[in-house]
């Protein structure tokens, strides 16, 4: 087995072995494809929702703003934008800055209060 596939397989095993420390979260990817200067409205295209296994590393609340850090396999979601949403246990979160992204692992900040949050 090639090393890339081997690392990916080991990561998948690691996530399975984390059991309830890893949980299923739903990514709702939204892509802005164009902007209509007549109406002043962006053209938005929503991709199908995608379930991935992720680990919540940290949850904080400062000045009423809830944040969390999410760790997941980069291959599960290689492209992220500030228009994306994440649903965790029925609560919507907005995608914040990418804290760390390498070939295999991504650490992402989330901010509470997505479009329907």
């Amino acid at each position, binding site marked *: 087995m090639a090393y890339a596939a081997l690392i990916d397989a080991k990561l998948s095993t690691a996530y399975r072995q984390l059991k309830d420390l890893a949980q299923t979260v739903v990514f709702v990817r939204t*892509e*802005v*494809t*164009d*902007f*209509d*200067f*007549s109406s*002043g409205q*962006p053209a938005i295209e929503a991709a199908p929702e995608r379930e991935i296994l992720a680990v919540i590393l940290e949850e904080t609340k400062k000045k009423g703003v809830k944040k969390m850090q999410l760790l997941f396999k980069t291959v599960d979601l290689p*492209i992220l*934008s500030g228009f994306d949403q994440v649903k965790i246990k029925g609560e919507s979160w907005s995608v914040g800055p990418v804290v760390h992204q390498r070939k295999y692992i991504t650490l992402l900040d989330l901010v509470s209060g997505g479009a329907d949050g």
Partner: protein
Amino acid sequence: MGRYTDAQQDIFSVFATNEWKSEGIATHPSLIVPDNPGQEYIRISVIPSSTGINTKSVAGMLLIDIFAARVQGPRRPMEIADALDKYLNAKSVQLSSGMTQFMSSSTGKPLEDREDPALSMTLYSIAFNYFGEN
């Protein structure tokens, strides 16, 4: 609408015209730039930052970041600035209930784009006055 919305609508209308679209320069407002904007595009910010001549008016700056491939050299951003001048420099627009008048434009020093070093970024700026109905 209010003076801020009307001024923005007037300015955006310039980029909705077929004449501007025929220039073939991809145009995006700030904060709504797509994931892969390409090797050449402009990014528009309308900043109504000054008081106008009356309470229905507002003045400000239209800031346009011109992104172009660095390999094309310093000429291409200036060609795009010239294209913008055709529609903005000392021109007026009347789409809303008021009227927007542009002053004279200027450009800044070309910089390397921090996100994509293959691109240059040159600031084109032009002051505007929006005159609302009083």
